[in-house]
Each structure stands twice: as structure tokens, then as C-alpha cells.
């Protein structure tokens, strides 16, 4: 019974993972990713780590991939618009990534093949043990990851804001006026896409 469940979900995980990278339609790729995450979660549960499995579904399949879909649908990316092939830098990056991943996988295999490696017990991956390790042994790394995510959020906000400011600055420059950060007066020459925001900002101050 357990072998059968393992076989089904191991197959599903690999097949859907291939579909994630191979499918042309981004929505299908994302949905395949959900299947991959769910299958791997089932494997976690079978290894005696139900907490890890459930958290994987809750956080990744239930929240993060939903945001992927949100972005794909908001931008309405179609299969035909996807870049064909890819640039040189992209290829080098993908080869580097594959090498690093293969190395990590090899390390894991090599370590578990050692005769004196500790067996994977339920005690080792129990909720209590997991949280103790996370909040005592690896507290610094844990907090650093949180900080890293915060930096990513701030970075995304900055990147999303910059073009808008550049646009308005150009418009001010084009109309022969100095850029006014406080927006004390509304401009006659306004970019139609950002115009309402500029006007709103001027109105507030």
C-alpha cells in the first residue's frame, strides 16, 4: 500500500515538475507546480514529517503559487509572447544553476550513503524538535532569511516606483520646469498614464 502511494506520488512529482519547465502556457506550468508541491508534500508525510508536508501545501501551494497565478493573469501573459530560446546570459545562468543543484544533490546522496549517518526518525523531524532547532540552533539564519525577504519586498517596491518618478521628471523637464518633489502645483503637461496620481499628490499637499 505504502509503496503504491509512494510510486504514484513520486511519478506525479517528477512528471509535473517536467511539465512546469516544458509547458508553453504559463498557467499550465503554474498549475503543474501546484501538483509538484502537493506530491512532494505527500512524500514528506510518508517520511514521517506531516508538519513539513502540510506547511509546504499551506505556504507554497496555497499562497505563493496563487500569487504567481495572480501576476500571470494580471499581466495576461500568453504562450506566444514567451521569448523563444533565450539570451546568452540566461543560458549561462541556467547551466550554473543546474551544476550547483547537481552538486547539492550529490552531496545529499553522498552523506546519506555514509555508514555512520543518523537514521531519519520521526523524533528528528517532529514539530517540537524542528521548532527547537529553528529558534535556538539556527536562530541567526532564520532571522536573516526573514530580513532577506523584507529586503526583497522593499526592493520590489523601489523598482516598481522608479519609472513613474522618472516619467514625471521627464515631463517636467520637457515643459521647461524644475522637478518639484513636493508637487506644489499641478502640471499642464502630464503623462496620461500617471497624470491622475500626480494631480492627486499635488492636491493633497
Amino acid at each position, binding site marked *: 500500500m505504502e509503496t503504491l502511494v509512494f510510486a504514484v506520488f513520486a511519478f506525479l512529482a517528477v512528471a509535473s515538475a517536467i511539465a512546469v519547465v516544458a509547458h508553453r502556457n504559463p*498557467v*499550465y506550468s503554474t*498549475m503543474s507546480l*501546484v501538483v509538484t508541491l*502537493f506530491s512532494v508534500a505527500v512524500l514528506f*508525510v*510518508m517520511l*514521517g514529517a*506531516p*508538519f513539513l508536508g*502540510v*506547511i509546504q*501545501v*499551506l505556504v507554497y*501551494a*496555497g*499562497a505563493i503559487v*496563487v*500569487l504567481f*497565478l*495572480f501576476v500571470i*493573469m*494580471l499581466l*495576461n501573459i500568453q504562450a506566444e509572447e514567451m521569448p523563444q530560446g533565450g539570451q546568452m546570459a540566461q543560458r549561462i545562468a541556467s547551466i550554473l544553476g543546474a551544476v550547483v543543484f547537481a552538486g547539492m544533490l550529490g552531496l545529499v546522496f553522498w552523506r546519506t550513503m555514509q555508514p555512520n549517518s543518523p537514521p531519519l526518525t*520521526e523524533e528528528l523531524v517532529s*514539530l517540537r524538535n524542528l521548532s527547537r532547532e529553528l529558534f535556538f540552533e539556527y536562530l541567526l539564519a532564520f532571522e536573516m532569511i526573514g530580513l532577506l525577504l523584507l529586503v526583497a519586498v522593499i526592493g520590489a517596491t523601489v523598482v516598481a516606483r522608479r519609472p513613474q518618478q522618472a516619467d514625471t521628471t521627464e515631463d517636467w523637464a520637457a515643459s521647461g520646469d524644475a522637478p518639484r518633489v513636493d508637487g506644489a502645483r499641478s502640471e499642464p503637461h502630464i503623462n496620461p498614464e500617471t497624470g491622475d496620481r500626480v494631480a492627486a499628490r499635488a492636491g493633497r499637499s
Partner: protein
Amino acid sequence: MSYVPSDLIAVVAKLAVMLGFILTVVPVMVWVERRGSALIQDRPGPNRLGPLGLIQPLADALKFMFKEDVTPSAADKPLYLAAPALALLPALSTICVIPFGPDLVVNGETHRLVIADVPVGVLLFLALSSLGVYSLIVAGYASNNKFSLLGGIRASAQLISYELALTVAVLAVLMPVGSFHLADVVSYQREHIWNVVPQFVGFVVFLIASFAETNRLPFDLPEAESELVAGFHTEYSAMRFASFFMAEYAAMTALSALGVTLYFGGWSLPGVDLDGWLGALVGLITLVVKVAICMAVFVWIRWTFPRFRYDQLMRLGWKVLLPLALLNLIVIAALTVAGWL
């Protein structure tokens, strides 16, 4: 796995009880919703078929079965057909972690009255129900209709926002209990007091967020009919539409059962301590009655509140509910550490 079914009959019986419950709820709720809305709007409502119109849901179901099943030619077929099934799956599976009675001893074997007695029950519920959003998004995308797409996009943003507040509110319940096991949550409330008293703020957050999670008015933005026709299920007809309909009520039932278990003592009643078959029966009936009261509140709220605007919805989720839930979490954590809970 820690749980191995020792007796197949027991598992099948438990499945029959809970699935029977959740599937019976759907037609009953259709009747309650239609008659309830009529009551609130001061009109008779469907009253022709059977006493008080009780046979009406059967007629509705027959109508759905015999309607033409239309698939738009521009639809993304595989995803379009998968979406209704994706809606029903999480709604029906989440009920498996809800305990519905005290331990039952049959022929010397102890059975826990819950379908899946897993140590991370609450998280499993939240994880499975969080997968429900895919049906809305996929339906919205695959229909190839701008109203559906807008509904799907709204659903994804709304559910992510409110899931956060909901999860944090649930976390505050689990802290004094010290376990993810829903059976432990119930026994904790039997020893102390219903969680709704010490965790009233958390309960209010949970209640509001559960309306958003089940897409019920005042938060039914993904299908807001005044602006999006019918939102994500605009293109669906016949039984496929009925699947979404059933999934909505099943999800409401499951979430009500979770809320009742977390805040209102689940199957237990204060002062009542029965065991054996009588205890099991009383436990099940208590749970059903409590869930029924919650469902009545769902209907009552739906027909008395106007719909929120989308920006109001997002502001409420991120600027009011989430900070409130976090504050509740901090206070409960402090009280737990101080040993007052």
C-alpha cells in the same frame, strides 16, 4: 504514518457520517437561503413544492441536471472542465479533521470519532482549504471571458489577504492548547471555558475572514453580479455551475465546523459528560446544531449587508484585520506565558 486504520468498517462508517452530513447540508441550505432571504425581504419565497416549499431543492437539482451543459468554444477546455471538480475537492475533504464525538469503545477497541486523526489537524484543514482558491482562478482564466478573468484575479488577491488574518487568529487559539490536534482543542475547552470568551477578538477576526474565505456577501467580490455578471462562473451552466454552488455551501459547512470546534467547544456541551453510543450520538447532534446556527448567521449576514467595494475589502483585510489578529496573538502569547490561560 502514525494513523493506520485498524478497522475498515470504522473508517467507512465515519466517512459515511461526515460526508452524509456535509452533502445533506447543501439542499437544506438552498432551502434555508431562499426562504431566509424571503423572510428578510418580507416576501413568501418558494412555497409551492411540498410543505413550506421543502421539496424545492430537489426541483432545483433536477433542473440543473437537465439543463444544457455549454462549453464556450474559446474556453481552455482541460482547465475549464477541471475547475468545478477542483472546487468540490477541498470543500469536501477538509471536514475529515473535525472531531464529532468522544472516544467510542466498540468490542474493546477505542475509536476516535474523527475521520483523519492526524497530529497536525488544524494545519491540514487550512492547507486543504487554501487549495480551494485554485478552482476560482482556473475557472476565471479558462472561461476566456473578461468578467470571469476579473473575478478570478479578485479571488486570488482576496483569499490570500484574508487567509493570513484567519490563520493568525487560529494560531492564537492553538497557543494555550499547545497542540495542532483538534481533539485537544475540544478537551481543552471542556476543562476550561469556550475559547470565544478569552479569545473574543480572535473570534471576530475569524468570523469576518471566514466570510471572505467562502466568498459570501458582504465579500463576494469574485462574483459581484452588479459589476461582473456572475464573476468567475459566468460561463458555467448546468451541473458544472451546480458544482460551484455545492462547493460554496460545503466550504461554508466545513469552515463553520472548524469555527465551532475552535471557539464553541466543538461536539461538547458544558455539564454534559456521556460516553458510549449515547455520547457519540449527543456529540454528533451537538456539532450539527452548532454548525446549523453558524450557517443561519451566514444567511442572515448575507441578506442584511451591502457588498463592500474592492478597495474597502483590501483595506479592511490588511489594515484592520491583520493588525488586530497579530495584536490578539501577542496578547494571548503573553497571557499563555504568564500562565493565565
